[in-house]
């Protein structure tokens, strides 16, 4: 549904490798098993990274069933969760990444112009 919302965002930086040189993205995607939702989240994440981050990213997919202690150590309460470990600050994107605009905001690839509650309403 992102197309329905009036665009209140602008690109934070050119979506080109040149602008992302200083900042390499370290991402972790937590999923629970191979449910359709998990798979969709993995695909979405990969697609998003390729489109917006070029090649400068690492994306680690973690199945909480396999590594339950990691979920505890990184304080994961919901899946799917995409954790932006780098660049700082730490950010947790909870959900199946279907709202790509918010994902971009969460990754600081888009800057919000409007107050927060308008974005939350979606």
């Amino acid at each position, binding site marked *: 549904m992102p197309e329905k919302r009036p665009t209140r965002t602008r690109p934070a930086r050119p979506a080109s490798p040149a602008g992302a040189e200083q900042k390499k993205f370290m991402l972790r995607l937590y999923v629970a098993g191979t449910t359709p939702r998990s798979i969709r989240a993995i695909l979405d994440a990969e697609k998003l990274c390729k489109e917006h981050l070029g090649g400068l990213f690492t994306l680690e997919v973690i199945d909480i069933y396999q590594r339950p202690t990691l979920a505890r150590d990184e304080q994961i*309460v*919901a899946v799917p969760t995409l954790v932006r470990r780098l660049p700082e600050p730490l950010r*947790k994107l909870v959900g199946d990444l279907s709202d790509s605009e918010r994902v971009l905001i969460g990754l600081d690839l888009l800057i919000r112009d409007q107050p927060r509650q308008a974005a939350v309403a979606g």
Partner: protein
Amino acid sequence: MNQPKERRKVLADDKPATLPKAQTGIHGLDEITQGGLPRGRPTLICGCAGSGKTLFAIEFLVRGARLYQEPGVLMAFEETSDELVQNMASLGFDLRGLIEEKKLLIDFVRIERSEILETGEYDLEPLFVRLGYAIDALGAKRVVLDSLETLFAGLTNTAILRAELGRLFHWLKAKGVTAIITAERGDGTLTRHGLEEYVSDCVILLDHRISNQFSTRRVRVVKYRGSSHGTDEYPFLIGERGLSVLPITSVGLSHVAPVERIETGIPRLDTMLGGKGYFRGSSILVSGTAGTGKTSLSAHLVDATCRAGKRCLVFLFEESPSQLTRNMRSIGIDLEPWIKKGLLMLHATRPTLYGLEAHLVTMHKLTDEFKPSVVVMDPVTNLSTSGTVAEAKSLLTRLIDYFKTNQITTFFTSLTSGDQHLESTDVGISSLMDTWLLVRDLETNGERNRVLYVLKSRGMAHSNQVREFKLTEHGIDLMDVYLGPGGVLTGTARVAQEAREASESVLRQAEADRRKRQLDRNRQTLQAQLNAMCFELETAEEELKRINAQEETRNEVEDEDRAVMARARYADAQAASEPKEADQQERSSVHA
């Protein structure tokens, strides 16, 4: 005939199906829930901030691990593991030790609103995984989630959260763990986010309220599916050893009644109570207006108990310990040595210092530690100043229950205010008492005198007399009973009566003596007369004998003379007439 039998059989078959329960180990809670929380099911603990939810939940885990060998998992959403360890250490719970022994696992779930951005649908599977992992790691039987509502602050999609929580509770049930879920109380609802919809097996409400400037904590079992439970609000306290729900003792009346007697310390009062004194483990009430000697009566019991080598615990609500010992010394009771010997403990507090429940817990604690055989509360009426009368009564009921169960004799003094009916107590506890002594002032002839009587004494023959007593330097002295036209004579009237009786008896004695003496005199006179007459009699007899003898002699002489004369006259015819003349002459000479 067959029907009832069948019905009984059905009932008997039903019995094993009762709900299995997990004991909480929390002081008093297992009594009101009749055995604990539903085993293998989640229980909701709700209450406002600071009502003791977390403590309740953690005590459940600690007691489970320590007392019932049931390891537990705590999923904490609000406090970190270190914070919890520190906080609970102040209540005497060694969480670190339990963690090291693998009897407890704390998983702190941190949800930072600022870090999180929602990008679509999600579920809470990681929570399930983390919890499942922890449960399996310890073989945990108990789980606490404190408090799930933090999720609502961190995540915004309530539809998802609600669905997931519903799933979580089912999952917990399937796991077979006994769980406690804490939740903040909402406006007009039990919980802010309606968790009570999901956790429907057992809901316990904790409350913390201020009334008359005293804070009281209360616990109520709102519902308990499949089990009966106490439905009242029960006060509870957070003490040095965790939570205590009151009543600590059972709600039932099932204590054993001993037949042993204990001395009252006043021999003549023992006599009034069937000759042997109070029953051990009974409750005794002394009520009366101010200055009638209630405390002195209690001091006698204390003294007698300590003299018998038993312990005595005295709660003072009016006087300080030194004031009491000083005052009692004036009636010849020295309590000091008993204190030094460790047989007597005087505990003085102002009733208004803290709430009733806190008093109750202090009393329980001291009683547990000191193990007295007699407890004195002086005066019990003052307790009502730190709560309502009804609260004071319920507190006393519980106390008496507790003491009776432990076979501790209790002695309460109750101050009756001037305008009150004498046979009533401020806190309405008289019906709970086994023995009720009433002391009062009797105003007659311009003086006040103390009288005492036994209003009731269950299970023993007791005197029905109104007795005057005096506070002497040797203690309480029960006086003899003098009855006057207006009832029992007291004070100077009694003394006057005593004097009158004494003088009367003196007079009677004197009269008797006098009569005795008179009779004695009479007897002596008669005796003397008798002696004189006997003497006369003897004299007369002697005289008679003498006369007889004389006559005989004379007759012989006359016969001889006559014979001689006859021989001389040679006649025999005149011999018969002549001796008569001689006889008469002889007799007149004797009489002269």
